[in-house]
């Protein structure tokens, strides 16, 4: 009997949450939460070290019966795609704890419990190999996230929390019916791998495709079901925004990769043009919306919609470059946008305003802050040498191969990205230092630097040497393409 590494990774934060419930001292709560998330991160690194990149098979698998009467098992396992996101979730876990260190000053214990439960559930989503188990993790996330936004958020938090909850719930419940239909169509099993091997008739695939699409599109979010995102992001506390942008949005795209593409290949191919169109729409529309924002957090939130459009564009290009780019871009977006939300949070803690017009000349007041901000801004607009460049380039080449028109639209989106991000940076960081007159701004402290540095490392690492990251997902992506296109015709 080997060590159940994935179970450990998934349930360690939950155990941490349970331990926290018995503590009374806020500082102890912070340190122990940090300890658990760091340990979890170490386990995730260990998992990645032991990961075999030459195969697309599921690794570190565990299977136990759960509800045998309905064919439900407790099954965990990771392939290249999920391993990358297990790592990302574990990384952002302790960064979130650091980001909330001073920002959360009331009900610290409850916050950390929610945060750690959230992390356990997110890791569970990426590890689950049983559709029922996946759904349980997927849906249970609503509870802590609802609390994180609703209890510790800004002034409009209650409205934002409700909107988040109901949007996601409505989408997920249709997904649930789809899951049950799939269960009966696929021979009364919830085993994801077994269901992937089934060949479903096209009309069933079509219905399921749209049932799944609603759930995943809400999470991604794709236009036109994106309206919960700006509210949720703006109202959520910093750690909540990081989780939302860094991991939660990835789950929709992960759903496409894990379910829609391999289980419903015919429908995915048939409706890929529709999906490309929706993606291009999100890229351009999100870009224009971001251009018009005067609130820092809103700007980053709308840029998320645009960037996630790149992800879905890459995925539904359904070729090797597109898919690899899309997945890499998911990782990049988690790092970069997570960092940008962290930066907005850091400055908001100091000034209590997010309005871009209130800022100016920060470079003179907080040079370290603005230097890193520059790095992440450039990364977000995909400057060569940063992580997003690699991802977006792959997506664009894949996208052009699939459809030149939508590829061109995506390029327009990239241009818009440069416009709103540079504009934002200019207004905030450059110019006369008139912000100093109004706020007492100090530069980043050591704790904040610890949270920022790893993200900066990944920006440059992926940007300069993306091979290890592409290596992790390579075998799985190639296998996915075979599943979608059949054995004969791989592009």
């Amino acid at each position, binding site marked *: 009997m080997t060590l159940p590494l994935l179970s450990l990774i998934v349930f360690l934060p939950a155990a941490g949450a349970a331990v926290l419930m018995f503590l009374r001292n806020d500082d102890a709560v912070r340190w122990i939460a940090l300890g658990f998330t760091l340990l979890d991160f170490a386990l995730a690194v260990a998992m990645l070290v032991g990961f075999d990149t030459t195969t697309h098979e599921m690794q570190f698998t565990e299977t136990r019966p759960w509800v045998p009467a309905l064919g439900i098992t407790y099954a965990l396992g990771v392939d290249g795609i999920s391993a990358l996101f297990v790592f990302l979730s574990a990384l952002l876990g302790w960064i979130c704890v650091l980001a909330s260190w001073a920002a959360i000053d009331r009900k610290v214990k409850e916050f950390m419990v929610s945060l750690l439960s959230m992390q356990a559930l997110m890791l569970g989503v990426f590890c689950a190999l049983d559709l029922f188990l996946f759904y349980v993790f997927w849906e249970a996330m609503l509870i802590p996230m609802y609390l994180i936004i609703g209890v510790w958020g800004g002034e409009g938090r209650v409205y934002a929390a409700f909107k988040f909850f109901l949007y996601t719930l*409505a989408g997920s419940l249709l997904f649930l019916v789809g899951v049950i239909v799939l269960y009966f169509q696929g021979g009364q099993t919830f085993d994801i791998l077994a269901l992937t091997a089934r060949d479903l008739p096209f009309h069933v695939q079509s219905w399921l495709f749209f049932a799944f699409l609603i759930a995943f599109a809400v999470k991604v979010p794709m236009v036109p079901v994106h309206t919960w995102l700006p509210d949720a992001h703006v109202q959520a506390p910093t750690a909540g925004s990081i989780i939302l942008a860094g991991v939660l949005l990835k789950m929709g795209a992960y759903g496409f990769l894990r379910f829609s593409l391999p289980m419903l290949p015919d429908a995915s191919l048939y409706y890929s043009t529709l999906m490309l169109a929706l993606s291009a729409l999100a890229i351009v529309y999100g870009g224009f919306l971001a251009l018009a924002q005067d609130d820092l957090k809103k700007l980053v939130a709308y840029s998320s919609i645009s960037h996630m459009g790149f992800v879905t564009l890459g995925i539904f290009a359904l070729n090797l470059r597109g898919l690899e780019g899309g997945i890499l871009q998911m990782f990049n977006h988690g790092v970069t946008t997570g960092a940008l939300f962290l930066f907005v949070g850091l400055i908001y803690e100091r000034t209590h305003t997010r309005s871009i017009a209130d800022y100016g000349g920060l470079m003179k007041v907080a040079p370290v802050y603005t230097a890193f901000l520059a790095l992440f801004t450039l990364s977000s607009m995909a400057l060569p040498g940063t992580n997003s460049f690699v991802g977006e380039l792959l997506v664009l080449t894949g996208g052009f191969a699939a459809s030149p028109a939508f590829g061109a639209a995506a390029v327009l989106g990239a241009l818009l990205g440069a416009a709103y991000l540079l504009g934002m940076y200019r207004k905030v960081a450059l110019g006369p230092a008139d912000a100093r007159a109004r706020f007492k701004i100090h530069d980043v402290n050591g704790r904040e630097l610890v949270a920022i540095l790893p993200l900066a490392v990944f920006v440059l690492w992926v940007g300069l040497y993306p091979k290890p990251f592409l290596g992790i997902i390579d075998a799985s992506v190639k296998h996915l393409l075979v599943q979608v296109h059949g054995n004969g015709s791989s592009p």
Partner: protein
Amino acid sequence: MTAAALLQSVLASLPEILVVSGACILLIAGQFVRKGQEDLLVWASVAVVLIATLSTLMLAGEARPAYAGMFVADRFAAFFKCVFYLATVLTFLLSRKYADIEGIGSSEYYVLLLFALTGMMIMASATDLLSIFVGLELMVLCTYVLTGFLRRERRSNEAALKYVILGAVSTGIFLYGVSLVYGLTGTTQLDGMARAVTEDPLDPALLLAVVFIVAGLVFKVGAVPFHMWVPDVYEGAPTTVTAFMSVGPKAAGFAVILRVFLNPLVQASDAWIIVALIAVATMAVGSFVALVQDNFKRLLAYSSIAHAGFAIFGVVAGGADGIASVMLYLLIYAFMNLGIFAAVIMMRNGDFSGEVIDDYAGFGKSHSGLALLMLIYLFSLAGIPPTAGFFAKFYVLTALVERGFVVLAVIAVLLSAVAAYFYIRVVMVIYMREPQRVFEPALTPLVRATLAVTALGTIGIGLFPAWFLGLAQQSVFGG
């Protein structure tokens, strides 16, 4: 009836006989219990139920028909009886302190609950329309009185009166259906009806009879269009009685509905279309009207209507899985609903009623443990995993999809998304508002025990549903 058959019948109905005897003894002995010794009443009542539970479990092995085919003690009945025992015992535990606060702590209160329990048990075991009627009347007569137990409160009196009048009408409708069945088939036994119907399956008069019977039963579970009494009665009755009624009598109603619907007579009559309409309408009314409630008890009343609607979807699905899904749903509902009612009852202390949702503002701040429990019950009622409420809904949906009713499943989930709104609104009030007052929940050890049992059930069945699922599935056959 020979002596041996009589002995068999007595043995099969031993739990009922025990509870009735216990209730009668308590009725007399209760007069000698002095003020301040009401604990004795609670423990004696609990003991009666526990003895009955033991005898039920001992008899649960095989199906025992009794009283010339009017009654049967089988696994199906045993499952429901266990739900009733659970509901009754927890109600007893909750009642002790509450009865003191409201001044209703007389022995009659406990005795009436025991008689109501007997009625529910007879309903679960009845296999003849007449024995169903006897059980039904025994149960509802007790609940009429219990509803009006707060004698000095207008609300309570009004609720009781409303309940009696509407209940009498529905009983009349039910009896009329029974008489039609008797006229058409010459028997009131469910089996006999089944035999009669195989000869002439498409008699429109039979359909009419079924509609009457269904209408009478639907009233008892509080489904649309016979739901009007539910909010008023739930609001007016003592909260402990409301908790009891929302679980016990409702489950008993479903036991009868399932028994009748197992019957080929109904299966042949295409009555499922009516039932499907009732299910959709019930869920819709319950969910949408609950959105605008400010009173917590009324909100829970509409929530219980919505849940009845969801359970009726299981009836629509039919078949072994459909029936098992309803049974599991009711068991899980018993845990989570008694849990949330325990929280409401615990808030009733001094001059504080805890009946208005806004009363709970900021409760999470001062009592984080109790607030967490309420959060669990509420999310379970909303059907969010990993709580038991999710598994209950999941299994009903599975049964629906298995029978090909995908559209109904979609309607069911969309309506439960609507229902989720008002549950999380309560969570919002508890966690996201500032406290207006100091809370002093009436936390006796008995209330704590109730909260512990219900929380354990709500979380435990959610995480490890396999055993309970197996129990429900096994209990279907034999019915």
